Structure formats: C-alpha cells, structure tokens
C-alpha cells in the first residue's frame, strides 16, 4: 500500500469529463445531479463501513441538511447556494457530534438499529410540525451563485456543475483523510479493537470522528438534493431512505471514494429505466439487479472496475 494513490487524478478526470459532457446530455443532468447528491451521503456511509459500522439512519443527516437549507431560504431568505450547502453540512455535523458521544459505544446491528431509531424519531418530529408542512414538506426557493440563479431553472447545467465540483472536493478530501493514520485506523478498528487500544489509540474517539464526517457528508448530500429538487419532506429521514443508501453503498463497494458515486449513478439509472419500462414491476427489477450484484460482484461494482484497471 505504498502511497501510489491515483484516485485524485481519476476524480479530476471524471470531473472534467462530466463538466465537458454536461451540455450535450441536458436530459440526464438532473438524474446525475441527484446521483451525486446521493453519492455524497453514501461516501460518508463508506467511511463507516470501512470501520465495520453500518448506519441505518444516515437519512437523519440527509434530512437535517435538506431542512437546514429549506428553512434558511424559507425563513431567512438566504439565497446563496454555497452558503446554503455550508449550512446544511455544518448543522448535520454538529448534530452528529452530539449524537456521536452516544453512538460511539455501539457496534454491529445495535449501531444500525440505534441510528435507525434516532432517525425515525426525527421523522416523527417533522411529521408533527405542521409549520413545516408535516409529511407534505415544503418547496425550496431557487438558490443563486455569483448573482446568477442556478437551481429551479429549465437549464440544469449550473446546478449540475455545482454538484460535480462539491462532490469532487468532498471526494478528494475524504480520500486523503482515508490515507492518514486516523483514516487507516478504519480497517484496524474493524479487524481488532483491542490491538488498536493497546497501540495507544482511542477507538471511541476515532469512531466518533468518522461518524461526524459521515454525518457532515450526509448533510451535504441532503443540501445538494434539496437545491436540485426544490422540495423537501420528512420522507428523507424515513428508514427506507437510509436503507437505500446502504443498498447503494454495497452496490458500489467500499474499495474507493469513487465507488459511492458510481453506485449511485448506476442505481439511479437502473431505477429510472425500471420505472419507465416496467412500471408495474420496477421493484422486482430493482431487487433482482441487487441480488445479481451481491452474488457476482461481492465487493461491489467498483471491484469490476478495479479489475479492469489492473488488467490495463
């Protein structure tokens, strides 16, 4: 594992390609933007998965990030896209820091279930808040950047470009984090917590940090989604949403920070086609696709790409 990590260059390449191709596939821009938003959440999940932790409650931060954006533009009429994204990320990070003190003690299925319970409680709170439209949620006004309205426009490109750049930055930072000693602790903790403690590192604080990172990324993903969709509702915190993120994480694989975005994009495309061409049995199609991946690509779609790269 000597540090010959090409990931940042691949990411940069991907960014350039996406930005360049964007104008030529206007019909797919929205779908791609959504995938990137989802990919950000899943990226955080991957950090946890590498540590051997599965959160069934990332929807909580996804939703909180989105609601932070929505409320700010609704009640404080903040319109600056970057500001909104930042806010969404921060609010989620803060919440994750608080809950992290509790969750850092949990492992395995109990970690999963406690995260699920917490997100469902938030879901309940939002359903009860008719001021925020209960389950109907409310619309997010178009946001602007450099004095130019970028979301809620017929032309999706600006929003798409923003999502690309945000995703790129997040991916690169996360990647370099994963290479640091603290990042490397992930697999160590997954393999053997006792040894980690006996080497003189605190498993608890390491997990806490990772949880906050995952929360922040989920918040960012939620914020991007809120801007792109222009509407938010409590469904974002419902357990099925979180389940979908885990699904995409496994689909993509945890081998690289690129995997989550790959997984998200492919997932969105499968689902859209299933929706359009077998409206009565799209769940069947989705489930089957999922099984095939789990059976034939145990390490996720990424493993297939990794293999190709090794060949070439």
């Amino acid at each position, binding site marked *: 594992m000597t540090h010959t990590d090409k990931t940042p260059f691949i990411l940069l390449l991907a960014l350039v390609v996406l930005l360049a191709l964007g104008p030529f596939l206007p019909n797919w821009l929205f779908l791609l933007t959504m995938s990137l938003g989802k990919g950000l959440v899943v990226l955080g999940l991957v950090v946890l998965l590498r540590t051997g932790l599965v959160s069934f409650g990332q929807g909580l931060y996804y939703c909180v990030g989105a609601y932070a954006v929505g409320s700010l533009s609704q009640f404080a009429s903040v319109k600056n896209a970057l500001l909104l994204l930042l806010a969404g990320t921060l609010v989620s990070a803060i919440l994750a820091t608080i809950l992290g003190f509790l969750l850092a003690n949990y492992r395995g299925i109990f970690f999963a279930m406690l995260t699920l319970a917490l997100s469902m409680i938030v879901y309940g709170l939002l359903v009860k808040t008719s001021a925020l439209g209960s389950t109907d949620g409310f619309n997010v006004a178009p946001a602007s950047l450099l004095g130019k309205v970028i979301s809620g426009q017929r032309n999706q490109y600006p929003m798409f470009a923003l999502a690309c750049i945000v995703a790129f930055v997040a991916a690169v930072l996360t990647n*370099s984090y994963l290479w*640091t000693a603290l990042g*490397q602790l992930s697999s*160590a903790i997954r393999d053997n917590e006792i040894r980690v403690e006996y*080497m*003189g590192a605190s498993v608890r604080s390491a997990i806490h940090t990772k949880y906050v990172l995952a929360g922040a990324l989920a918040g960012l993903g939620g914020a991007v989604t809120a801007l792109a969709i222009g509407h938010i509702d409590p469904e974002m915190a419902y357990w099925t949403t979180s389940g979908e993120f885990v699904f995409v994480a496994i689909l993509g694989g945890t081998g690289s920070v690129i995997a989550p975005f790959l997984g998200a994009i492919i997932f969105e495309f499968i689902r859209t086609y299933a929706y359009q061409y077998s409206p009565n049995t799209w769940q069947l199609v989705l489930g089957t696709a999922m099984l095939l991946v789990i059976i034939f690509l145990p390490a996720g779609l990424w493993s297939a790409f990794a293999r190709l790269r090794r060949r070439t």
Partner: protein
Amino acid sequence: MAVILNTKGLRKSFGAVTAAAGISIAVEADSVVGLIGTNGAGKTTFVNMVTGYLKPDAGDIFFKDRDISELHPRDITRLGICRSFQIPQLYDSLSVFENLVIALGIRDRNVHGSMLSRTFKLVPAANPLVVAAAEKSMQRFGLLEYRERAARLLPEGVRKLLDIAMALISEPEVLILDEPTSGVSADEKFAIMDMVMDAVRSHGCTVMFVEHDMDIVTRYAPRVVAFYEGRILADGKAAQVLSDEQVQTYVIGGLRTLGTGASDVSHA
C-alpha cells in the same frame, strides 16, 4: 537498580475463582523477568491488570512511582508499557507492512501530539521515515518476505513475531510478552526469542515474559517468578526458583505433564 514497575497486593477474582490473591512484584529497570506457572495460575490476569485491560479489585500498580492501576491500556501504552499476546492480536485483513504502518501512525500521534494536526501533514504510507521504520522492524524480525501477505494467512510463528514487532514499534520502556513461543515449533522458539532480545537490547528496555517452556526461561530470564493459584510461590534467581521444591511439584510438575521440555530442567 531503580524499580520501574511495582505492583502491591494486586487482587482479582472472577466470581468464585480467585485469579490474583495479592500479587506484589518489583521489577528493576532493564532487567528481564520470566513468569511461570500452570494454566490458570494467574499469569495472564496479572499481565492484563498491569496493562490496564483488567481493573484490579484491590492493590496498586506503580510505573516509575506513578499509580497506573486506573488507566486504560492506551494510556499505559503511551506511558511506555507495551505487550504482546498469547493469541496474536493483529489486523488480520491487512498485510504485514500495513499492520506496522498503522502501528507507526499511532505511535507518531502518541509521540507528537494531536493525530489530526500531524497526520494531515503526513500520510504514513507515503512518509519515507515511516516506511523506513516499518522496513527496519520487518527486517529485524525476518518479516520482509511476508511484507505484502495478509496477517490472517501467516504461519503461527510469524504471527507471533509480527505481534511482538508491533508491541516494540513504540520503543516501550517495559515490554511484556505473553507466551511468546507458545504454538511455535521447537526449532523456531529460540530464534524468536533471540530476535526479540536483540531488538530489545538495541534500546534499553525492561522485559517481562510469561512462559511455559523451561528452556526459554532458563536461557533468557535471570529472574523468575512462579505463580500458583493466584499467589506467588517463589521469586528470585532462576536457578533457585526452578530448584525450589514447591515449584518443582506444583509448577514444573504441572508443566511436565504438558511435556514442555521440563526434563532439561532437572540438570539445569
């Protein structure tokens, strides 16, 4: 010589079983001490208490006159007491090199303050210093040929070595080895101990090791402490302790049934 590690009346019981009934040992700096005793005599419990894995029910542990009996393993490690394990505790899915790099990454944090502040400047696997240190350690313990092999795929002897190598990474002042040669073939065991001792000598370090193998004990431990049912049966020069009558009957007798070359001891 100065006492570096000093335990006073350590007691620990699990339900009805008393694993430590008042253990008091004073260890001088740079000495080598062998702990012997049959299974269940309380050796590992003692080690676990000294390293903070178990909290003693009563008694104190002093490291350089500082009471460490309430500390976590990580704090004790940072103070300079490291250990290896009876069953090697490794990062099984990672390669030998990765195991060591992670160990070094943590050491750097312990040596140089905040992990984040430092590690964002430094990606261990990319840092020549770290790589050099890892390679030095691999070379010293003959692990180079296994550099890229996942720990779970290593032969038991090599796992032992890696386990010890990781314990030594942070150059502790006190090194505690829990049965370093158990599960290792007879022809490997001396080699292992020699490597460990060389490594230790390269920087001054106190060594305490739990052993069933009397050959190892007699060859490497000038001082021996014999455990029996949570008590210290005898403590002193190896020759005396091993020839002690009670030790012969309760400890070595018990061990002979294990057939760990106790026969040699008779004409030791």
